[in-house]
């Protein structure tokens, strides 16, 4: 514990800016992955334990597109869409067969899928470390704000993640298809009785969740190493975010992701040996005080 250093940091504008920006970056990438996880749980009622694999797929397909086109825009789009397409196929051919089964069966199916996806990545891309590299537009010195440093690429990541989150919120809350999806989450039989193809909707929602994970992977590809199995590391933190925010709540995922990001960032200064502990401690505290999560629906 180093409270003196933490107090010194909080009293310094440069340190506060650097640490807040660091927390936002970590938090917003987590939000993208966790919001997809939350969306799938909220509508389909299943926990997609294989969600990290779509983050990995997004990163690898973005790398592939970047190597072929040298366009970062194309890489982001291809990475996200490829993860979405694979997600739709995964939902239709595999996950849809275990709807209604107990969680253990779903967990086993997802675990098998993780192993298969990891091996496919190894076969297609190799087992060695890969990195996309920083696009030229962002290969610049960090921007100085109040004496603190914020890399330009991280500002871009924040904007992209916020835009994706806002788009998702508007789509769910302000559009007709969003209304149908919300209705599907509450009463799928009624939606089906109205002549709406619920299977298609389920696949679409699952795919959208995977697009968000894929976008997170594609955004991470220039700064995080790509290896088979990379999805597992973000999956655990995403679950923590989902639990803190409330299972199925996208605004909850945003709040929780930012909390986790800032906890990690300032925790690294004041409690360097207990950063992971702080994160799990926060989760435990929320579960005790509000078991349904910060913005989750209370169980009736």
């Amino acid at each position: 514990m180093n409270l003196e250093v933490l107090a010194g940091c909080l009293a310094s504008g440069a340190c506060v800016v650097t640490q807040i920006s660091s927390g936002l970056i970590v938090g917003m990438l987590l939000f993208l992955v966790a919001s997809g996880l939350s969306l799938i749980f909220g509508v389909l009622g299943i926990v997609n334990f294989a969600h990290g694999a779509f983050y990995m797929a997004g990163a690898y397909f973005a790398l592939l597109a970047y190597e072929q086109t040298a366009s970062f825009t194309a890489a982001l789009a291809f990475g996200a869409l490829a993860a979405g397409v694979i997600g739709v196929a995964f939902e239709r051919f595999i996950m849809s067969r275990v709807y209604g089964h107990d969680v253990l069966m779903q967990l086993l199916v997802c675990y098998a899928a993780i192993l298969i996806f990891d091996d496919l990545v190894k076969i297609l891309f190799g087992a060695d470390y890969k990195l996309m590299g920083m696009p030229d537009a962002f290969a610049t010195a960090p921007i100085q704000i109040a004496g603190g440093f914020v890399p330009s690429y991280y500002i871009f990541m924040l904007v992209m993640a916020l835009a994706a989150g806002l788009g998702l919120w508007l789509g769910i809350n302000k559009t007709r298809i969003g209304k149908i999806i919300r209705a599907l989450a509450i009463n799928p039989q009624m939606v089906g009785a109205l002549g709406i193809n619920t299977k298609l909707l389920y696949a679409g929602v699952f795919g959208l969740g995977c697009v968000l994970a894929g976008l997170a992977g594609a955004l991470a590809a220039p700064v995080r190493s790509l290896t088979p199995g990379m999805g597992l590391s973000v999956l655990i933190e995403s679950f923590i975010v989902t639990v803190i925010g409330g299972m199925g709540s996208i605004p909850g995922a945003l709040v929780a992701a930012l909390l986790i990001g800032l906890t990690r960032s300032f925790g690294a200064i004041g409690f360097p040996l207990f950063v992971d502990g702080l994160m799990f401690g926060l989760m435990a505290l929320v579960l005790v005080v509000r078991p349904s999560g910060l913005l989750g629906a209370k169980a009736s």
Partner: protein
Amino acid sequence: MSENRGAIGRRMLLGGAAAGTAMLAMPHVAGAQAKVIRVGMPTTLSGRIAILGTSSRTAIRYAFSRINEAGGIGGRTLEVVDRDTKGRPDEAAKITRDLINNDGCEILIDAESSAGSFAVHEVVRDIPVLCLHTNSETSSLTADPKMLVKHAFRCARQGVHDAVAGGVYASAISKERGLKRWMTCSPDYAFGRDNTAEFLIFAKKFDPGIEVVDQIWPRLFAPDYTENITKILQVKPQAMYSALWGGDLVSFVEQANLYRLFGNLTFFSSSLGDPPVASAIKQLPQGIHTAYRYNRNYPAKPANVAFADDFTKLAKHEPTNWAWQNYVACEFIAEALRRTNGRTDPTALSNEISGMELKTAFAVDEAITMRASDHTIIGYPVPWGITIPAAPYVKDFVPVDWAQILEMEQEWKKDKGFA
């Protein structure tokens, strides 16, 4: 007639039963008569450190193909039987038993990381088979006399050797440049903590002016290091040591580049000298100090360059540190088999390997020696160099005298109660 042809006679039955019983009772005799010598290889072939297993396997297959193409060992050929332990020590132990008992492997190359290697070591303590550990760098595996197993050897670099070499190299630079405020950033598990502690022991021994102002321990396989990098920016050390490795090191360097961290810091890395790591980093900063892991230009021998070229053709990437270690292990095995005329008896092979001076492309001088006292190799490359942005990624290697390493190692062993 047809009934007689199809029936199994009493003598045939008894003969078959006797032969079968003999085969089951004496697997080594049955094995010794086989044309192919099967070499078992428990290793990690999946997950985030799959490259450890895949690059080790490629090196072994390449070595065996060369040996077999040259006529094998007294007409017998070598074949590797690899199994994925998934990086789990319990699985490594189980697979090792299976390779020996069920797959007919007469020799083992344990290409597991440290956690798995200790598990394999305990299996071969009970089942006598020649075993070469090729990827574990944890010193105690062979330095601790309680760990000694007569037919188990380490053909890999050892933590304490690298720590002495790193301490000698880093302290010279710290004295020259007046680097007093140091910080470390290493993965939070046994290897990361041990490696960092050993490096600091020797760096401080040679430059007592070094003061460690902070240490950070990101967890192994952490996806993001931003919080650690911004912490370093706040502490503002003059120099830094890191035992981060593999994909973690790739992420750290690339994320640190965004903050221009390396411009104001003298950075020492234990693992940046691994070519697949260095080549994965798109903007490898110039001037980072790194320990040798592997380099096609060091030792400067044509056979080393040929190995790098051939391996790269097969693996589609430059050799790893694990690749040369496994290749040398195959050379040790082949040489021992030649001396025993192809006999795989573990005692006979161990007697040959113990103390063997192997002439190889990877020796600093003429040979790498398998030290008889503690069954570990010495005389392998332990220089430090500095990074350059393009291949071969590391240049200006500064060798460290092995006599000094051995002297310091002996002192360290005494302090640890190992000698």
